[in-house]
């Protein structure tokens, strides 16, 4: 189980327990976290589950595929070095805790 803390741009935060094999997007959608839309349901089509991941967690995350990299071109908020699509961030037991920051908007 990984503790994922979702930080909204307004400063509020929600923490969810995310079982291994579940993505940060899936957990947010089921857990009712605002700010992640996931229009396409995790198919790397819509870029509406964009999150910013602080650098210190970068090594623990699944590597970025070419598709994900390409889709990040069209995020609604600016892409940075820390941008990821949360549908691609599948958790595993090696990750104890992770913080992600939500962008101002997804569309």
């Amino acid at each position, binding site marked *: 189980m990984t503790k994922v803390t979702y930080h909204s741009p307004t400063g509020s935060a929600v923490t969810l327990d995310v079982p291994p094999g579940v993505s940060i997007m899936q957990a947010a959608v089921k*857990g009712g976290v605002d700010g992640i839309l996931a229009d396409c*349901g995790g198919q790397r*089509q819509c870029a509406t589950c964009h999150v910013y991941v602080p650098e210190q967690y970068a090594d623990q995350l699944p590597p970025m595929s070419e598709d994900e990299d390409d889709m990040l071109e*069209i995020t609604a908020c600016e892409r940075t070095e820390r941008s990821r699509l949360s549908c691609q961030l599948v958790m595993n037991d090696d990750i104890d805790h992770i913080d992600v920051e939500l962008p101002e908007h997804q569309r």
Partner: protein
Amino acid sequence: MSAPTGPRSVVVVGAGHAGFTVASELRSEGYDGQITLLDEHAGLPYQRPPLSKAYLNGDLAADELPFRGAAYYEREGIDYLAEDGAVEISRADRTVTTATGRVIGYDALVLATGAAPIRAPFVTEGLLGMHELRTRADADRLTREMRSATRVLVIGGGFIGLEVACAARKHGVDVHVVELRDRVMSRAVGRTLSRYALDSHRAVGIHFHLGVGVTSIGATRGRVSSVTLDSGETLTTDLVVLGLGITPRTELAEKAGLDVDNGILVNEYLETSDPAISAIGDCCSFPYAFGGRRIRLESVQNATDQARTVAKRLTGRREPYVAVPWFWSDQGGMKLQMAGIGGMDDREVLHGDPASGRFSVLRFDGDRLVCGESVNSAGDHVSLRTLIAHGADPELIDHFSRPDGDSSPTALKQLARMLRGRA
């Protein structure tokens, strides 16, 4: 915040991608009035696209299908009514009557009634082994029966038909596809991609019967057993899957006297002939911002973007619907991504090498880029979405009309970045 003159109660009919999104976006836009989301189906509003893709392949569990958990609707104050569809609209009273007899008043009504599978004349109701795919229950039934089938016959070589054919093949079943036209996906993609997809599917052992119609379906003891084609050939089969396309569900709108012609007619603001009623998603026919004609689209992009346009309007930001359409289809190892809408006489230009399994087809109407089709090339697809939005841009037209114009994936990406930066 709601506009001072805005609606205080919104009723949404249909809880697919369009219906769910308009309800959810109304709240995101700050609307604090009443929202009623009517769903004729049981359970929670859920996604349809995976039903013929990951869900049918067994790669996605049933609990991943709903858009949001049950608590979401309660928290957001969305009155979600399951197993209760709308049966009548009274425009004079501004009420909707549901199947269970509820009468719900509205200031604004959003029709997101979707579409229903087309029924062909050769289909006999109630035959076992006969499938269509529109709901989770349909997908569950098909998955169950596919396990014990040795042969599946798919009627219709469009997206759904081919996705089902691939899933069946993955289950180890002998698969035949019958398509009336001389090529697959003829309505949705150009000849180049059509040809490539056909070859790829044949290479994994899917059998195709192109340019032939079905005359009758044979049955033994109430169960499908064969399909006879108008070529005279009869194919035995355990299951038949109908993938003949869908038709917009307009009965409710028609009964209410709204204008309907291959979909509920809406203007560029997605208002029907009654401005208190909007229509979005598969069920509506709207003016195409990039083509000077009316179209109807069956896609997640269209459903969600139209939902956002309506949610904004109902909260005081009236903007026309202008979005480049995009679609995707997962077929075996092929991820197809389409942007824009092609025409019958487009010039198709191939970029990349199909033998590599990754390429794109750019389709031009004269010098104007109108459509892009990509296979396992998300980068191209993303660039093409932007380029098509700017299809009329003189610089872009000039670029594509130069014989030495570089159209490598990198060049397309740079062009797209330049155009996005300008916006």
